[in-house]
């Protein structure tokens, strides 16, 4: 069985995530797009693990899940604070720092 479709799928998911980060306005949605990118990485890692017949990639996928969970904790805390202060989670509204 060819594994190429899985890699292509992971590349598509990664691209959707990256485009989402660049175009969406809501910090939460931007963050979800980042998570989508991380999951695309997981798919690629697991597929390559299958292709090479070793477990490195699968183990890495677990590490990535843990890191992503830690990132959610920190990220949601920051976005929550911004939201409570500004009553908005739009990345366009927070624009005091520029030039």
């Amino acid at each position, binding site marked *: 069985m060819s594994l190429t479709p899985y*890699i292509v799928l*992971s590349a598509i998911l*990664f691209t959707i995530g990256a485009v989402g980060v660049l175009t969406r306005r809501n910090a939460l949605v931007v963050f979800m797009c980042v998570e989508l*990118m991380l999951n695309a990485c997981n798919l690629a890692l697991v597929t390559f693990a299958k292709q090479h017949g070793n477990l490195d990639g699968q183990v890495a996928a677990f590490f*990535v899940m843990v890191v992503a969970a830690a*990132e959610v904790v920190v990220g949601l*805390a920051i976005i929550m*604070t911004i939201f409570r*202060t500004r009553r908005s989670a739009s990345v366009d509204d927070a624009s005091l*720092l520029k030039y």
Partner: protein
Amino acid sequence: MTEFVKPSLDYFQLLPLLVVFGVACVGVVAEAFVPRAYRYVTQTSLTLVGLVAALACTVVVALDLSEDSDLAHADGRAHGLVAAVGTVAVDGPTLFLWGLILVLATLGAMLFGERRLDGGVSAFAGQAAALPGTEGEREASTRGLEHTEVYPLMLFAVSGMLLFPASNDLLTMFVALEILSLPLYLLCGLARRRRLLSQEAAMKYFLLGAFSSAFFLYGAALLYGYAGSMELAAISEAVAGATENRAMLLVGTGLLAVGLLFKVGAAPFQAWTPDVYQGAPTPLTAFMAAATKVAAFGALLRLLYVGLGNDRWSWAPMLWVVAILSMVVGTLLALTQNDVKRLLAYSSVAHTGFILTGVLGLQGADRIAEGEITSLQAVLFYLATYGLMTLGAFAVVSLVRDAGGETTHLSRWAGLGKEAPFVAAVFAFFLLAMAGIPLTSGFIGKWAVFSVALAAGAWPVVVAAVLASAVAVYLYVKVIVLMYFREPVGDGPSVATPSVLTAVAISVGAAATLVLGVVPGPLLDLVARAGEFIR
């Protein structure tokens, strides 16, 4: 089915890392059990003792390693060992970087502990959960609350920074990248004054940082697909041998580079630098600007030299472009700034370009003539000088204040030379060092990176670097002229008297900048003895 083998961790060699991590965990426990009145003293002393102990451990490990291989370091060859089942490489450059990061972290922790500048409270928010401008915030401030959690958070960041340049496989590198970044994202949002700016900086840093680490991870996945292993040595072998799937190697290298170049703040990934440097509490900016750059450059060097060293002709042109772009963008945009912290941030982008110039030099000790230095040595030296002068400069910024806290707008700095001649002189000295004036460490650092790049034939980059340096001199002199030859606006800037903590941090930075500029020999000798990366 292979039998399970108990991994050996080489606890002795990993001691500095474990000490910092252990003290951070103890700090978390102390936060829960020590009464509020004693927390500040407990946490600051715990942090400082932990960092100094880790520094001592680093020296002991370094002495032990050089005893093991007393022949090796004479000609600059690699010495060290790969600890923790192939994931952490403890070698000469690692130990040098560990020492440097721990020195910077100790000075940074002193700045964190400064309470005299702001009337008995630290630079961090009294209660981060209280909204800015509400009753809750005023109450927290009248009760004199402060977050002593910042010390354990900082130590976690330091442990990530120690692991980052030592990581010998891509997964460890990714995990270390996150360990160092996540506490920094939080700390960024914890400023006591100008909290909206601080929170905005935290959000920007977090979103862009997470974005770039996703790129790093996809790059790691692609290199794993290419080489079948995440270990740098295996990747290096695959790069030398395999000729199929070069596209995967190239794309993977590019994505990994995006992640790392973001962390070092190179153009075109520099957008976060000025915002985060300006919005973050100044003690954190000082620590982060210095230590993160050191750690990230350590990891970048290890990845490029050890993992992808055989594929040099693929990544070198990319770095040429990034180096030139960083120097041009950093210098030109710094010229247009009217805020001291943003100006220093753009100057750090330009310095990233200078360090990248050094990365382009020749690597092997066997490829260079007698008496010349390798690219690695030049970069390590530059990192040491740059880290200490940046930390000192930001520490000086935290001294210039008015009623609303720090005053970083350049117009408010006019006439500082009359108001506080000594502080202005120290800041002018740091600026001259950044410009690379002889008799400061900045000059030797620049000379080192330019000469290695020139020896490797990267002369277009060196020409751009020299031009950028010339423009940068104008930039820094402009600030010095402003401080000394302009009349103060209104009642002028006021300079707060720091406690001994900040005073020590500034003095160490200034002394190191002067000493390394006048007698750079011992440090150059030390980086030569550090040898090369172990493979």
